[in-house]
């Protein structure tokens, strides 16, 4: 193809289509088509036990069944999901901020210390489930062995503490992510506002409240939103640890989809309706996330050269 007349390739339609179309077509076929199909299935009464021809168009009856509480585990699953989301995001933020501030000092061998934060972030989530199962075991687990010194014994995955236990695993797994993000944010703050605050006689609490937190705000918002989306998406660790049990104590929406659709029943139509509910919840938070990123992106591009030379890698 010849160079388009006058100036730039950047507005050439032909080149644009050649670059963009292949991946867009692939994404349309492998994502959009299946998702439209999911919407369709959620409007049928399709049952894995019966043939595909046996399905009927059921309108919104799957959704009505959920909302009117005929599926007794639906609203509890929504509630559990929201509790899980609120607890994990709050704890990860608080502990993550503390860890970030701890690292935001002169430390000998900082890179080595920080490397340990990477462990929970990249280990296979299903294996994280196994790992904690090993430690949570009531009789042979190392946690109860340690608690034994203060005469305590907890049935970690039992009815009373199972939800707390899966929250703890998620906090262990993702606090480093929040910490690394907030650490990068802290490193990007210049020393100027601090210096003038000290001159003005501000206390360290005031400095934290009126300087550090506001300047960290963009990072905090992005971290919290990403964690919220992931809290809705979680499946692996909970499946390996409890499969949603005992009873439905740890049955998050994603596990409810699994139980209705795959385990025992095979009610794909109804399961798809639950999936649509989860999809809508995730889409709402994703939309907020993208609004935020859309606001911060242009500024980020403008600062790209500066940012390239700072940050976690080179500062460590």
């Amino acid at each position, binding site marked *: 193809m010849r160079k388009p007349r006058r100036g*730039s*390739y*950047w*507005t*050439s339609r032909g080149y644009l289509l050649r*670059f*963009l179309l*292949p*991946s*867009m077509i692939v994404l349309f076929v*492998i994502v959009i088509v*299946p*998702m439209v*199909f*999911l919407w369709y299935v959620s409007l049928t009464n399709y049952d894995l036990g019966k043939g*595909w021809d046996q399905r009927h168009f059921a309108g919104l009856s799957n959704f009505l069944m959920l909302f009117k509480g005929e599926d007794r585990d639906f609203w509890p699953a929504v509630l559990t999901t929201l509790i899980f989301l609120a607890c994990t995001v709050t704890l990860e933020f608080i502990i993550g901020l503390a860890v970030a501030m*701890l*690292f935001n000092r002169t*430390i000998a061998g900082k890179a080595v210390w*920080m490397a340990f934060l*990477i*462990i*929970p*972030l*990249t280990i*296979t*989530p*299903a*294996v994280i489930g*196994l*790992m904690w*199962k090993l*430690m949570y075991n009531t009789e*042979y687990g190392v946690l109860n*062995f340690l608690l034994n010194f203060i005469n305590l014994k907890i049935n970690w995955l039992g009815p009373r503490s199972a939800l707390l236990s899966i929250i703890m695993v998620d906090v262990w797994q993702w*606090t*480093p992510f929040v910490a690394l*993000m907030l650490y*990068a*944010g802290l490193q*990007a703050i210049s020393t100027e506002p601090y210096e003038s605050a000290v001159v003005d006689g501000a206390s360290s609490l005031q400095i934290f409240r009126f300087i550090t937190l506001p300047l960290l705000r963009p990072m905090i918002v992005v971290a919290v939103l990403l964690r919220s989306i992931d809290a*809705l998406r979680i*499946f692996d660790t909970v*499946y*390996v640890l409890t499969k949603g049990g005992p009873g439905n104590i740890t049955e998050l929406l994603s596990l409810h989809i699994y139980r209705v659709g795959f385990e025992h029943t095979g009610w794909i139509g109804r399961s798809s309706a639950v*999936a649509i509910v*989860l999809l809508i919840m*995730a889409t709402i938070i*994703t*939309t907020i996330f*993208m609004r935020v*990123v*859309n606001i911060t*992106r242009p500024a*980020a591009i403008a600062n*790209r050269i500066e*940012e*390239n030379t700072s*940050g*976690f890698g080179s500062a460590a």
Partner: protein
Amino acid sequence: MASEARHRRRIRFLKRVGLYAGLVVVVVGFAFPFYWMLTTSIKTRIETINPAKWIFSPTLENLVFVFTKRNFLMYLKNSLLTVASTTLLSLVLALPAAYAFARFRFKGKENLAFTVLSLRMLPAMCVVLPYFLLGRFIGILDTSLILIIVYMSFNIPFAIWMLRGFIEDIPIEIEEAAWLDGCTLTRSLFKLIIPLIGPGVAATAIFIVIQSWNEFALALFLTSFQARTLPTMSTMFLSVTGIVWGEMASVGVLTTLPVLVFSLIIQKYMIRGLTFGAIKG
């Protein structure tokens, strides 16, 4: 006066001690579960159910058992095939698109880019249902092909965003200057841009490897025997009674070691990857 100086020195010393004590607590907290799994994998069967046993002579019997009796190599082969294909195909498709999003000017660019990104955020359990049904109709359930396709569905959007960020880091003037010298767009892309973002492409590739290697939910429901990948081995150990802890830990260690090595290589890009290039920290 002298005592006051000494007092201040002592406080500074105590602060340093407190800082490093805090670091030790943090590091032990995040590393201990992995350490415990690692040691469990080299304990004998009796030692694994004795949490008081912290010092022991290591044995390789669990690791050997995983290879000989648990068919580890088949899972490994499937994982390697799935991950390699996913990574290669995702990069080849994403690179030109990322270039288009980074450089070209067209109507609705940001909207399209964000639609693409939103595909990365879909919950696995929403994607699994239609894939299960469609896979059954077409007859590709329990093949690596269906896993490669579904893994591409979240890795292409990821790669487009990551690579777009790396391309945007490179001043646009370099290419425009090359055109003045008679260079064509395709040539400047291959001769200028791709070599310059080489590290970025490598980091993106490693992220795709990690994400596909770790994926569990889709692999669990879309495959049953032949195409199973390593993470699904964990389902062998789900019943509460009679768990063989040593073998379970060995599977965990063998599955995670490659990922850990990879993640240390891209430590510098960690934040960037986990935020899809939205934050470059």
